[in-house]
């Protein structure tokens, strides 16, 4: 690595946007969500909400998660469709959880570092989120949340199989430790295979921007553990935090450096075209915006162009999505309005009126 010290990020945020630790748990003695009637789902929801919803319980959960309170409980069926989609776009709930009308709720802190889905595939899905590469901090917080929950709820647990989950691929630890990484250079240099091969060897999953079954919009990939049985949580953390994430971060930085050194003109051309397009466009589809933003992010992280900070670019990837645009501007009606609003946000972010 020959990056000048001043440019080398200390938290890997040039490559890692965020990290998440998720837990799947079910309440003992109740059928899993998929086999539950609506009254049974309501019962599970009430059991969880009454165990976690008191001031004392909320305080200890939020403190364990390292988040800042209060913890807001939102009933999903009564939530407008646009707001449900907004939560999905922010990676706080899953697509399945956003749709449908069965009894379920989400609890989240304002800083989004801690959230829980009740009655997703499992009774309880906990998420601890941290910006940048802070896997160990997120992991410690998730373990503390688990302990706080276990003091209040009896979870379905099998002496041989561990925590029982609706899907057998989650049984055991019921944990997913993952990072969201930006691999623009590795895609440009056709080296993504390297990441996929390493992931496969180490029993890891690589997924797109919105998780399972989505494509890598804007060259964002989620890397997380796949195995949950026969391996301890702390071992899974070590595989990711000590081996995989540092390797991927280095490969991507190496690819960025190689591009700038060996194909500078080509990269500069792409990056400046990206900036110009985002500064000039009056209508932008999400796909086009994500694609150009990804190339510009490569330019910003390698110092080829100025422009918005990496933080701002990360924020834009969320804010230019449909429900976010509509929430910010209620006058938006059709797709053209949406594309126009997206282009306006981009021009403002790139300093053009």
């Amino acid at each position, binding site marked *: 690595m020959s990056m000048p010290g001043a440019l080398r990020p200390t938290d890997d945020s040039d490559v890692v946007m965020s990290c998440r630790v998720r837990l799947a748990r079910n309440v003992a003695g109740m059928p899993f969500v998929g086999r539950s009637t609506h009254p049974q789902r309501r019962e599970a929801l009430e059991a969880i909400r009454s165990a976690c919803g008191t001031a004392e319980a909320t305080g200890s959960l939020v403190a364990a998660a390292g988040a800042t309170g209060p913890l807001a409980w939102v009933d999903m069926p009564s939530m407008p469709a646009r707001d449900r989609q907004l939560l999905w776009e922010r990676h706080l709930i899953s697509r399945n959880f956003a749709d449908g009308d069965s009894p379920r709720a989400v609890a989240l802190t304002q800083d989004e570092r801690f959230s829980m889905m009740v009655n997703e*595939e499992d009774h309880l899905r906990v998420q601890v989120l941290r910006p940048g590469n802070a896997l160990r901090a997120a992991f410690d917080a998730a373990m503390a949340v688990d302990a706080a929950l276990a003091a209040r709820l009896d979870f379905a647990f099998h002496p041989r199989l561990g925590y029982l989950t609706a899907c057998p691929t989650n049984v055991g*630890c019921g944990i997913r430790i993952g990072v969201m990484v930006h691999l623009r250079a590795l895609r440009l240099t056709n080296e993504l295979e390297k990441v996929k091969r390493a992931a496969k060897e180490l029993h890891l999953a690589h997924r797109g921007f919105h998780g399972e079954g989505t494509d890598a919009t804007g060259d964002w990939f989620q890397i997380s553990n796949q195995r949950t049985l026969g391996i301890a949580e702390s071992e899974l953390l070590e595989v990711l935090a000590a081996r995989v994430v540092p390797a991927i971060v280095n490969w991507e930085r190496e690819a960025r450096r190689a591009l700038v050194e060996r194909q500078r003109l080509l990269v500069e051309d792409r990056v400046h075209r990206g900036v110009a397009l985002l500064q000039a466009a009056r209508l932008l589809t999400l796909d086009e915006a994500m694609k150009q933003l990804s190339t510009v992010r490569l330019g910003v992280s390698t110092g080829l162009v100025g422009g918005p900070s990496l933080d701002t670019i990360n924020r834009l990837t969320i804010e230019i999505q449909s429900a976010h645009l509509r929430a910010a501007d209620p006058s938006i009606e059709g797709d053209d309005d949406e594309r126009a609003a997206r282009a306006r946000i981009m021009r403002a972010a790139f300093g053009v009126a």
Partner: protein
Amino acid sequence: MAAPFRSCDHCGKPAVVHNTVIVNGKVIEHHLCEEHAAAVTGQPVGPVPINALLGQLAQVGAARARGPTCPSCGLTFHDFKSTGLLGCARCYDTFAATLVPVLERAHGGATQHVGRVPPAGDAAIKHRNEQLERLARELGAAVAAERYEEAARLRDMIHALRPQAPDAPGTGSAGAAPPRGSVP
């Protein structure tokens, strides 16, 4: 060292397929009867999408016509095969025979949890006390109705659940539940 006869890892039938694999330096032996061998033949040890795993199991399912049905939640083998999801905690025992190869393939050969264990905390004690109360009510009803066999069974269950300390006052607050394990 070779035993003349090995039974299947998943059921009591004689094993016809013997396989040794090395995962992360650990030697793992598989002994399978004809039926279970059919479910796992040709497997590379490693993560595979759940639907692919279940697709392979379809052959076993077809051979058996219909698999078991969970006595607790009513989930059938067919339900499990089509959704990939189990219905309740009991399902893990109901479908144990077909789940073992699924688990092995999804989790790199492992079938034994080695991670965190819930502490025997307040919730566990509360849950046990609720169970004890319910069983005591059922016992009273069984004795009143002169269903003595059922009463004897309930008495055994209560005995098994009750904390061992003989001086526990019955509220459960003094006699702690036996620890279910420790957090590593």
